[in-house]
């Protein structure tokens, strides 16, 4: 009887339409009513998810480029940089976040730094591979045309390395979207917070909606990156088409 009373209390808002599809009794996986009723909560979680992901990938991008350039200039540093970043990558995300907590506390900064470290590993490798893929003849011609090292890097090598770098950026972005959910450990996990709540309270609609949104978000960001790549590398278009 108590169960029934609780169920009745839960379905009050939609009393005329029978029990809602996300009430305790039915607890359906797919429930559009949940999405409309909790719209603001879902939008907030998605926005948090997006900004944490974007901030982490951007931070990774900004740090990895100078690191890759440094590794190329000083080959002795290359193996050290790669070894350290691979080491960080080996540490599971659920362990990396607590290790940052003493320094940054329970804040979104902790999640952003942790995810940026993972993105960094992928991006440093992508930059190194990309710069290595630039043919030596091209480099020599540019030097012959009077390009200094700085201009050679920015005007010749970087654009030619872009396809490989973008491939790495796509991998980094998609995996960062997935990893952001683990941030729910420190309560800043975007959609991960909804997933966590869904598990704790056995709330299936919430759980599945958040999981699906994560995958959709990854696909949307990936498509955006592919579009950006097409705009940034017009010379590859003719070849592929």
């Amino acid at each position, binding site marked *: 009887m108590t169960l029934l009373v609780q169920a009745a209390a839960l379905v009050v808002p939609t009393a005329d339409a029978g029990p809602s599809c996300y009430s305790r009794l039915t607890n359906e996986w797919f429930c559009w009513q949940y999405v409309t009723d909790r719209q603001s909560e879902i939008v907030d979680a998605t926005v948090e998810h997006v900004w944490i992901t974007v901030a982490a990938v951007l931070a990774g991008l900004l740090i990895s480029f100078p690191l890759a350039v440094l590794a190329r200039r000083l080959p002795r540093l290359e*193996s050290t940089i*790669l070894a350290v970043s*691979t*080491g960080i*990558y*080996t*540490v*599971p*995300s*659920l*362990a*990396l*976040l*607590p*290790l940052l*907590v*003493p320094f940054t506390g329970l804040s979104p900064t902790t999640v952003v730094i942790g995810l940026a470290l993972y993105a960094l*590993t*992928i991006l440093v*490798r*992508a930059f190194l*591979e990309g710069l*290595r893929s630039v043919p030596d003849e091209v480099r020599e011609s540019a030097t012959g045309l009077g390009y200094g090292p700085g201009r050679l890097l920015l005007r010749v090598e970087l654009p030619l390395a872009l396809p*490989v770098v973008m*491939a*790495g950026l*796509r*991998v980094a972005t*998609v*995996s960062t*979207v*997935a*990893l952001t*959910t*683990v941030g*729910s*450990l*420190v309560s800043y996990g975007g959609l*991960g917070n909804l*997933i*966590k709540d*869904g*598990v704790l309270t*056995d709330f*299936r609609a919430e*759980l*599945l909606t*958040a*999981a699906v949104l*994560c*995958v959709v978000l*990854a*696909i949307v960001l*990936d498509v955006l990156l592919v579009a950006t790549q097409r705009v940034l590398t017009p010379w590859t278009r003719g070849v592929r088409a």
Partner: protein
Amino acid sequence: MRVLQDAWAYLTTAGSWTGDGGMLELLLQQLLLTVTALGLAAALGLPVALWLGHLGRGGFLAINISNIGRAVPTFALLALLVTADAWGWTQGWFPGVREAGPYGRAGLATLVALTLFALPPIITNAYVAVREVPADVRQAADGMGMTGLQKFRRVELPLATPLVVSGLRLALVQVWATATIAALVAGPGLGRVITDGFVRNQYGQGIAGAVVVAVVALLLELVAALAQRLATPPGSPGARPTGRPRRSGGAPASVAAPTVSS
């Protein structure tokens, strides 16, 4: 920095390692989970991927499996598997959070998730490994009158071994990380120490657990790197001290970049 002292105190207390639910028990549990899942994934994925590589078909499939695997959050999949035990149409046969012998609470659901996440690196690397055997070597084998099976066993398989092992190594790191995340859905393994610490506001304990998980992860990586070096004959194209798959124009970026997503 009080928490660091707390963490040190937790690590140096014998009581937190021994006993029921102590870190030692959880550590062994997680190692058992990792090894089982890796074995299952290798048994499922390797034959298919190697044979597809031999036939030269299904590359699209291999690459796509790895891409989809990256987009699905480990946490979400674990959460779905754990919550799924009361699905009406499985009549409750799916174990969900139920205890599964030495694998602990939600053991079976965790094993399924771990195996699924170990498959992409194993399949992609094994497929690419066989595909990358040089065409002239294949032709030479054909010229010597080898049958398809002979060519596969005596030529392609030995040459592919280094990359296959590197896939297994990636999968090992991945499975260990995923097994840690299982604790977010109250699953088995060392992650429990971390999540319990955070839930009870005992951050020292959480950090101590994180240190243990990280150290074991690094040790596993070192052991795997050593195993990979042993599996790679000196002078072969796969013999690179960093253990990265060899660079080549045909290799997809997903193989060149580390594929861990947890």
